[in-house]
């Protein structure tokens, strides 16, 4: 993101209330992560030490410091989804996307990106769509009542071409 784009974002927050998180949120949404040079620019612009922005960026789970894949698959790990089988959803996604086998323990936080950068697999606490548990979100779309067997069809809507290395 260039300086002009960042300036426009900052200008949208004339008051101090909610500004820092608001600006970072906009950058995260547009760029898909918080690039280092953007943070450096914002530190000067907002008159904050870079270390403080870094501390915020790592404290809040909404922010990431590395670029995510083109599509972001977020699995809800909230209570309703856990009870209704979220761990099995994660397990299947790991295999289908061929990422981090075993790295996710089924309920902890994780963030994994496929080798070709097409997909990132990550977790959330709750989308507030608990009635449709288990729930997953791809980019901005929420899918409810997910079962492991429904996942390939869902992924195909996002140009997933299947895992050719193994058979499932």
């Amino acid at each position: 993101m260039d300086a002009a784009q960042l300036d426009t974002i900052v200008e949208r927050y004339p008051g101090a209330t909610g500004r820092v998180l608001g600006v970072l949120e906009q950058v995260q949404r547009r760029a898909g992560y918080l690039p280092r040079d953007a943070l450096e620019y914002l530190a000067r612009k907002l008159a904050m030490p870079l270390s403080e922005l870094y501390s915020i960026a790592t404290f809040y789970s909404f922010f990431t410091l590395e670029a995510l894949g083109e599509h972001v698959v977020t699995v809800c790990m909230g209570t309703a989804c856990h009870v209704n089988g979220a761990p099995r959803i994660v397990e299947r996604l790991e295999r289908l996307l061929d990422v981090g086998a075993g790295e996710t323990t089924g309920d902890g936080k994780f963030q994994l990106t496929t080798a070709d950068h097409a997909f990132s697999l990550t977790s959330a606490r709750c989308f507030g769509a608990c009635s449709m548990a288990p729930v997953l979100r791809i980019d901005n779309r929420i899918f409810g009542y997910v079962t492991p067997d429904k996942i390939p069809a869902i992924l195909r809507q996002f140009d997933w071409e299947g895992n050719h290395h193994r058979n499932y």
Partner: protein
Amino acid sequence: MGLATCGIAAGADRVYAALESAIRKQEHNIQLRRVGCIGYCREEPLVNIHLPGKPLVILHRVTEADTGRILHAAATGDVPRDLALCRINAWDPIVGDKLVFGTGFEDIPAYETTPYFAPQQKIVLRSAGLINPEDIDEYFAVGGYTALHKAITEMSPADVVHEVIISGLRGRGGAGFPTGLKWNFTKEEQSLRKYIICNADEGDPGAYMNRNEMESDPHMILEGMLIGAYAIGAREGVIYVRAEYPLAIERLTAAISQAQRHGLLGENIFGTDFSFSVTIAGGAGAFVCGEETALIASIEGQTGRPRPRPPFPAQKGLWGMPTNINNVETWSNIPVIIHRGGKWFSGIGVPENSGTKVFSLVGEVECVGLAEVPLGTSIRTLVFDIGNGGLRGKAIKAVQTGGPSGGCIPASLFDTPLDYAHLTEVGSIMGSGGVVVMGTETSMVDTARFFIGFTDEESCGKCVPCREGLKHMLMILDKILAGRASVADIEILEELSGLIRKTSLCGLGQTAPNPVLTTLRYFRNEYEALVERSRSS
């Protein structure tokens, strides 16, 4: 067409588009409107259809393929019976005049006799799923902003606080602190600047009533905040909304600009010297930021770590100024209290627990959704009458209430009334109203581990008992689940629980052991069976 997040996920946006294009192609005068969610999430997508002189009929599980049929029936003055869930002949929006839809369609079950709705009493959700949340005129049509007008033009700030005190309303965000008394603290502070905050962080995973309140009736929340600001003497308000709720943010933003255009937000409201503005601040995915001091730090652009109280926010809150924080649902109750009077409100529910509470009934239950019942309603009524029991007829073992700060209540205690004192007595809490139903196959030790894993990850790391203690609890729980633990480990788990409760800095740590303590209290046999297994292997 019901278009809240859950409806959209069930395909409501596609049905809406199909209806829209089909309506354009025919010559009848059919109007298509967006509404929020009436709370029967299992039956989504929902379409309300109103024909002149007829009851409002709620159609359920509507698909794109049904749209032609629906419009064809409407053109002939009818509704497809196989899609009809229930009919509403008349509706009481409590604040405004009664809405009379009509009569007829007697063969369709009445709303009042539908098992899911019959035990409910809609006060907070009185307009949810019936009005367009994006249109302030529809809020006006159900008496919107008349309570604000009454408060500002006929009542003194002290009168307003008094009315809220006698209503008996208690905070809906967790601890249940009396709202009127809390307002008085900030009101009494001498300061040129004061703030009010609406806590819309909704951190409990499994609770989503605040999302629906914001998505379905955002003006109700603004009106509640306006009345509170007038009573407390605040000129600025902040709504802190979690990042996971983009649609709620969108609708609140639209509601704020509509209210500004109508002079309901801004300078000299209703020609008086009362002025008030509202800003939306976004959260960024940290559970602890629901805690009030962490929330304030977060709005100020810092990491969201709680600080010791006192000083309380009422003395030193946002930007060091006196600040009053309430939950979304607390604010939502204010307009009705002012309109109908505190005494009227105190007659709903049971003593010390007036009013209703919206519960999210989720997990392994047949009829998932949001149910609003008077406080004091039993768990059994909620789970069996409204929820129709376990999913696909499964037996139910327990419910978990209050989220990560709450506990698991066994089926043998389902006659417990849902009120603040009784839930505390059985070891859980009201919390924000999340009720997760668990079937007999759910392992209670795994459930306890799930919550400790959650709070351990969400601990801000500031105080030692929470940061280190929860980690140790997690290790012990993993050991038990892996079948490598001894009886002594269960004892250490109990001891650690007590220690963390007593010595943590904020509510997160102080309540985090509750899921372990309640499962040990009611399901100790499950822990022991796992320990037993390790001894015999």
